[in-house]
């Protein structure tokens, strides 16, 4: 699993190189490369159908990419080629966890149980793969206690402590989103991938979410997120990658991307020659940067 040492910069957590994904005859992702830095929030944006979720699914093991290399660099120096890992190992071994665009909670389990399921691998080991736990050995009891404490910590962070004993399916939409993030964090990831975390949230919930995400970053987990909501992206991300028709069209700081004529064109849907026009106008200072 762990591969030889490549010359990856210490501060890069995820390096995507020449990623391509083909569905039948359709090239959903075409030679896409980018890097996500450790301790940063990297945002992957792009118009509908640009292939953002496909990139995500390749990174998190739900699709096997047609081509390309996805290298994950853990803080202990180990490197993993994500496309070679089995689906569940991406979380278990490589420390990548994710959320889903259409929330996928265990709706019949309580909020607390959702967070305990996320600590499956730790608890499994502590219970001696169930056998020692069945006998009631203290190692498991201690681990179970620690698991509940960890869950409580994330419940607090996600502002869900009051709902801990309610079924997850009973929560409001915004609370479900937060729970999904808390659950992903309970696996102890180094890289957290969020698929449109702000979709469907009202402005107030959106603000809480931003705070939660910043808190997660400040505790040392790197984030990669797909987002439509530009206010969220510009507000919290350190680094933005723009995807259109499966290809990268821009990469840089939020400010850089915001003013990239190609991005503007992609979002406003203008023709190629118009892009040049806008570029010219920008150069001449006819329109102010950031107003488009």
């Amino acid at each position, binding site marked *: 699993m762990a591969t030889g040492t490549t010359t990856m910069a210490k501060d890069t957590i995820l390096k995507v190189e020449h990623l391509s994904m083909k569905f039948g005859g359709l090239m959903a992702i075409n030679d896409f490369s980018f890097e996500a830095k450790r301790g940063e929030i990297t945002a992957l944006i792009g118009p509908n159908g640009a292939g953002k979720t496909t990139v995500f699914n390749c990174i*998190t*093991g*739900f699709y096997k990419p047609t081509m390309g290399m996805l290298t994950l660099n853990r803080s202990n120096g180990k490197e993993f080629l994500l496309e070679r890992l089995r*689906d*569940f*190992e*991406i*979380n*278990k071994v490589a420390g990548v*966890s*994710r959320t*889903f665009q259409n929330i*996928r*909670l*265990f*709706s*019949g*389990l*309580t909020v*607390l*149980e959702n967070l*305990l*399921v*996320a*600590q*499956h*691998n730790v*608890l*499994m080991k502590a*219970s001696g*793969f*169930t056998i020692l*736990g*069945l006998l009631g050995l203290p190692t*498991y009891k201690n681990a179970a206690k620690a698991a*509940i404490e960890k869950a*409580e910590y994330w*419940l607090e962070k996600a502002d869900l*402590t009051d709902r*801990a*004993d*309610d*079924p*997850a*399916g*009973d929560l409001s939409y915004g609370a479900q989103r937060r729970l999904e993030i808390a*659950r*992903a964090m309970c*696996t102890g990831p180094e890289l957290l991938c969020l698929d449109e975390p702000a979709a469907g949230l009202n402005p107030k919930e959106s603000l809480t979410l931003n705070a939660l995400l910043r808190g997660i970053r400040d505790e040392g987990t790197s984030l990669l997120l797909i987002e439509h909501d530009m206010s969220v992206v510009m507000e919290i991300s350190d680094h933005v990658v723009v995807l259109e028709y499966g290809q990268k069209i821009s990469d840089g700081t939020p400010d850089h991307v915001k003013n990239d004529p190609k991005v503007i064109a992609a979002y406003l849907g203008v023709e190629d020659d118009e892009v040049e026009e806008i570029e010219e106008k920008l150069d001449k200072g006819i329109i102010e940067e950031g107003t488009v």
Partner: protein
Amino acid sequence: MAIASENNVQPDVMAKAIKEAVFAGVVAFCMFLLFVGIETYQDINNQLVWRTRWGLLAVFVAVAVVGRFVTVAFIKPHLDKRKLAKAKTGVLDISEEKSFFHKHFLKIALVFLLCYPFLAMMIFGRQGSLKYVDNFGIQILIYVMLAWGLNIVVGLAGLLDLGYVAFYAVGAYSYALLSSYFGFSFWLLLPMAGILAALWGVILGFPVLRLRGDYLAIVTLAFGEIIRLVLINWTDVTRGTFGISGIAKASFFGIWSFDVGAANNFNKAWGLPSSSVYYKMFLFYIILALCMLTAYVTIRLRRMPIGRAWEALREDEIACRSLGINTVATKLTAFATGAMFGGFAGSFFAARQGFVSPESFVFLESAVILAIVVLGGMGSLTGIAIAAVVMVGGTELLREMEFLKHVFGPDFTPELYRMLLFGLAMIIVMLFKPRGFVGTREPTAFLKERKAVSGSFTKEGHG
């Protein structure tokens, strides 16, 4: 205003009820015309001939007409009214205070079960109690155990297994064969049968657990049939449809034997009159202990990571994978654990009957066990036990309905209607309680208070 509208509605309802009743009558007449109205039988020349049964047909049609009329005219408005009243007052069923019986139900049930054989003996005498200990007690407890075993696969992990009886068969034949060929004792073979069944669970499960939903269901059904067909056709070992008879009885932990001729006969040793009831009582306590073991393991496992992973798998497999759970291994453990309990039950079955044949392991058995799990409420041990008592005990009770002969004449054999009523009961219970008797789920961990999870949130799995 409510009264006025009720008065207005009344004639409409009546007219509708009459119309629907007539329609139901016509449908029933057409449906039953051939199958009830005409009886086919073989005459003395073995030739197939027929005669009419208009009287019986009339009864069927009349039942349909009256049933439909009563439903539309009285039952449905009554139910609607109750629902409306409930919605108005805002009282929900769940807020009811639990009664003493309700709270201590499990303890009462356990005490009752422990005393049951002695109670039966006190009431019905030594020979009279045989039936109650064996046909009711042991029979029901075997189904309880099987259903609890299958519950791990279907109720917790959400894997639809239609061939569960295969593991029951593996357990039974393991005991039958190993005891007759090698003379191993029950107490050695009981765990072995469980392990062998679990092994088969893994062997069969491994290639097919990738399949989803109904594909898994049909393949498990196919495996169940394959095992049965092999048992029928591999005559050198299994003696085919004749089955294996003369299987050794279980001994009292090797100390006393229940064989009549043995020197260390239990009855002799304790100075008891010779009767098979003591052996049956002993078996009753064995199966009770096995059931308790199943329940204990299930309850413990649910609170462990593996049990939680099973339930999570039932709720959302994709999310499980994203959390680093090895779904194949998790499914396999569920399959193997369920199979193991099936194997225990099978070896017990062989010891109790002293005879096994492929007849006992037909698909219908799998269906009955699955029905008990679903009727009880998937995942709920109490519900499943209640379902087993109602369904198995209920149909056993039919055998006892001798008085019906006085009603329907001496030719009437209530047993003939056993499975018919069983099937009808399955349909009716599902229609009224689609989530089973106990539809709620007990959480496995809690922070402040343990609140049951309503059945409307839990999923039933698709893998």
